[in-house]
C-alpha cells in the first residue's frame, strides 16, 4: 500500500490550484491512453504519480474554499468551484484506472496497439541523463518539431510539473520529459535525452 501524506494547509490562490488541477488532469488523460494502448509502463507510472499530486491539490483547494466562505452568497458560489474541482479529480482517477490496465499487467490486446500505431501519435517519457547534449539547452533551441517531428508537452522536475513548457525553458539533467510525436521521432529523441550509446549494427 502506498504511503499517504498528510496534506498541510498553505495559502495558494484557488484559481492557481484549480488551473493546475485542470492542466494536470488533461495531461493525465493523454498519458494514460498512450500508456494503455502502447503498453508503456513508464508512462503508466507517471500517471500514478500525477494522480497523487491531483489528490493533494484537491485537498488544498477544499481547505482554501472553506476558509474563503464567509456567508451564504460565498457558499453558493464556492460550491460550484468545489464541484468542478471534484470533477477534475474524477478525471484524474479515471486516468489512473486506465494506467492500472498496464501496471496490473492486464494490457489491451496487442493487435489494438498495432492498429493504433497507424492512426495516433504516441507519447513517451525520457529521463535526461547528466551527460546528455540537451542539458542546459532551451526547449526552443532544440528545434525538435522540425528535426524529428517531436514536441515536448511536459517536464517533470522532481515533484514539480511544467505543462507546455515555453521555448525559453532550460532543460536540466534529471528532468523527466514527456514528448509527443511519431514513433521513429520519439525513439530518436529518447536516445538523445538518455544519451545511450548508439547500437552497433552487426
Amino acid at each position, binding site marked *: 500500500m502506498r504511503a499517504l501524506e498528510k496534506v498541510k494547509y498553505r495559502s495558494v490562490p484557488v484559481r492557481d490550484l484549480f488551473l493546475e488541477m485542470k492542466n494536470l488532469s488533461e495531461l493525465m488523460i493523454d498519458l494514460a*491512453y498512450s500508456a494503455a494502448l502502447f503498453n508503456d509502463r513508464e508512462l503508466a507510472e507517471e500517471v500514478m504519480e500525477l494522480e497523487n499530486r491531483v489528490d493533494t491539490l484537491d485537498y488544498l483547494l477544499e481547505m482554501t474554499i472553506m476558509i474563503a466562505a464567509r456567508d451564504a452568497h460565498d457558499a453558493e458560489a464556492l460550491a460550484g468551484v468545489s464541484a*468542478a474541482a471534484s*470533477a477534475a479529480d*474524477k478525471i484524474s482517477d479515471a486516468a489512473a*484506472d486506465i494506467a492500472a490496465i498496464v501496471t496490473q499487467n492486464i494490457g489491451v*490486446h496487442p493487435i489494438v496497439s498495432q*492498429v*493504433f500505431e497507424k492512426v495516433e501519435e504516441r507519447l513517451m517519457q525520457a529521463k535526461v541523463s547528466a551527460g546528455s547534449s540537451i542539458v542546459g539547452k532551451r526547449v526552443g533551441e532544440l528545434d525538435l518539431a522540425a528535426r524529428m517531428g517531436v514536441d515536448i508537452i511536459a517536464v517533470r522536475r522532481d515533484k514539480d510539473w511544467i505543462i507546455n513548457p515555453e521555448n525559453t525553458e532550460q532543460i536540466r539533467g534529471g528532468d523527466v520529459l514527456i514528448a509527443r510525436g511519431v514513433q521513429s521521432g520519439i525513439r530518436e529523441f529518447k536516445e538523445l535525452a538518455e544519451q545511450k550509446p548508439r547500437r552497433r549494427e552487426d
Partner: protein
Amino acid sequence: MAQQDQARFEEIVERLVELKDTSELMIDLAYSSLLLNNRELAEEVQRLEERVDKLHTDFELLVLKSEFKKEEAKGFLGLIRLGVATEKIADAAAQISEVVLRGIEPHPVLQLSIREAEETVAYVPVTKDSQLVDKTLAEARIPEETGMWILAIRRGNKYIRPKPDSRIEVGDVLIASGYADGVESLKKLSAR
C-alpha cells in the same frame, strides 16, 4: 492469419477511437464552458454525454460479441476497462458543465484575468466559397490568421475534436474561442 485478426479488430478500434475522441472533446468543451462561463458550450457537453453513453454500450456489445480465444481474455478485459474509464471521463466533463448550467455566478476566487474574461465563443459556418474548404487545420493556420482557437468542429450532428490533420469541409461549423475582432476575421475566412 495476422491479417484476419487485424480485420477483426478494426471495428473495435474504430469505435474505441470515437469514444475516446468524444470524451476528450467533452473535457475541452467543459473546461472552456466553465472558464468562459458559456452556457451554449455547457449544453453541447450535455448532448455529447448522451452520445457517449450510447457509444459506450455499442462498444461493450461489440467487444463481448467478438469471438475471442481463452488466452485473449485479458486483452479483451483491458479493452472493457478502457471503455469504462472513458465513460467516467465523460461523466466528469458533464459534472463540470452542470456547474455552468445551474447558473451559479463564478466566485471571484475563480476570476480570470481580464484578457480571458473578454473572450467569447463563436459558431462560424464554412461556406462553399471559403478558402478553408479542403484544408487541414494545420494548413488553415486559423489561430495565426485570426487569433481564434478552434474548440471543436460540428459536422451534421457529429462533433470532431480538432487535430492538425482534421480536414475542413463545406457546411462544417467551427466552434472557436477568442476576442470579438477575431470572430470577424474568422467569419471572413469561412465565407470566401
